């Protein structure tokens, strides 16, 4: 069985279409979406409609959550004053464009999805705003997978795809106390776990404008990172046409992401 996992579409309809065509060619049996359907990009409603019409299981992303609940994240959402101003501008624009039924649909999205030994979240099992960066310390990374109760944790949010195999999870500890006779040495070996970041369909940050997503062969336990070319210039033109800041188009064309970037792997969102 092959599954496709994608995330962070951000209102980029052209990119979504291209990725769905590629998924079709890869003959995936099931598609999962890890949220952030809206925000920054020019076609939030069309993206949501497409996901809904195909009945793709989707969990909620931080941008989807912001549209439902309003902006209430802690400072980790924006690494700079400039990014914050741009992010808020994009939020206000998206908020003004969203149809009521789209907002209602976003409000129904769950925080996580499960399929056998796999778990799908937007940011981390703890928060949609937490970045599971590849540089996160192994202990914390392992804790995130354990807390999801899964063997393979699929996430997005950072917009840069990666696969991380946690295969040396060994913990040794000593218990001592007044009620314990002598010290008690214990050890714990974690089974192999994986974190798969699926990248971003509509707002990549890997230096090229191409969309990224993942095909996972469940039986062979093989991950294939897919990078898909699409007509990003059509999206750039739509950004300008809709009156969004031209800098969004410039950044999209260079695979720089619109405004945000994750830079602190140790931060735990306080939202």
């Amino acid at each position, binding site marked *: 069985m092959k599954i496709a996992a994608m995330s962070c579409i951000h209102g980029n309809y052209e990119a979504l279409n291209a990725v769905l065509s590629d998924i079709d060619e890869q003959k995936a049996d099931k598609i999962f979406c890890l949220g952030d359907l809206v925000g920054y990009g020019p076609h939030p409603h069309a993206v949501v409609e497409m996901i809904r019409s195909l009945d793709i299981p989707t969990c909620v992303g931080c941008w989807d959550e912001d549209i439902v609940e309003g902006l209430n994240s802690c400072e980790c959402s924006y690494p700079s004053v*400039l990014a914050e101003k741009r992010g808020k501008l994009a939020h206000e624009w998206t908020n003004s464009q969203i149809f009521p039924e789209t907002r209602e649909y976003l409000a129904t999205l769950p925080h996580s999805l499960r399929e056998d030994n796999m778990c799908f979240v937007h940011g981390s099992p703890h928060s949609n705003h937490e970045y599971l960066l590849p540089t996160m310390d192994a202990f914390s990374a392992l804790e995130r997978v354990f807390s999801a109760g899964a063997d393979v944790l699929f996430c997005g949010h950072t917009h840069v795809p990666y696969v991380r195999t946690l295969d040396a999870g060994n913990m040794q500890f000593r218990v001592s106390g007044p009620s314990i006779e002598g010290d008690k040495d214990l050890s714990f070996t974690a089974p192999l776990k994986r974190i798969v970041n699926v990248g971003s369909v509509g707002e990549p940050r890997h230096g090229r404008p191409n969309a990224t997503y993942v095909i996972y062969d469940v039986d062979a336990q093989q991950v294939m990172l897919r990078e898909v070319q699409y007509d990003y210039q059509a999206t750039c033109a739509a950004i300008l046409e809709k009156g969004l800041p031209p800098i969004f188009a*410039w950044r999209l064309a*260079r695979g720089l992401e619109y405004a945000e970037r994750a830079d602190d792997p140790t931060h735990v969102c306080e939202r």
Partner: protein
Amino acid sequence: MSQPIITAVAGPPGSGKTTWIRQQLAAETCPALYFSPGTGNVPIDQTCIAAEFGQIPTLTDGEESQLLKHLQNGVSAYIELGFYLQLTTVENLLQSFPSRRIAVLPPEIKDTEWHQWGDLIVEGIAVSGEREKLSIWRSPTSGQVLDPASLDLFWYEEMTQGAYGKIHRAKAIFDIADGRSFYFDFAAAFQETAHEEMPLPRWLEGRPQRFSGIEIIGENLDETALGQTLEDCCLSETIMLNYQQQVKQSLLSVEETE
């Protein structure tokens, strides 16, 4: 022949005019001053030279009468002529006082009006851009304090990479959140930015009462977007004061530890 009292220096942007003048000023044994006409309310080079050579007067537009007085008192003047000025701008002065004309030119440039104009050609560094296509955008930012992360995004990821037009040269002095002032210098010919801390005390009491600003030379500059982005990089009053308070406490605790 009398000793030159005025040294006029001209050349394309980024060829090394200011660097050459700084070298001369460092070696000067007689009283000297620096004047760069046409820089308006964004005197970046003047500010750098004033900070580096505290005893050397630096003059800006509107201070021409002081320039005359200094010259009459025998003070040597280094006058930098930006590419945006006619080479005849200070011709009257050059005719009235003993003078020399220095053209700082990269070796690949041949037969220009600078060659005709200069008494001496000093070999400069490589430059980019055709003079006729270049425009200049300046903005004072005095009183503003910039968020360093935003400045990184604006300067390194966007401005110098062409987000607001093709940039050939950019210079700036900015006050940042921890109270320090930094000089930034980008030259497209080398695709890199040099930056250094200005030899000035940290400003930790409200809005800085000293010069800061930016000057960009390029083609097809989106001045509106440049201005808006720069404004969006600035800290609000509340956040600026909060930072200043934190830095003061941090410096105090370091002093107590020592």
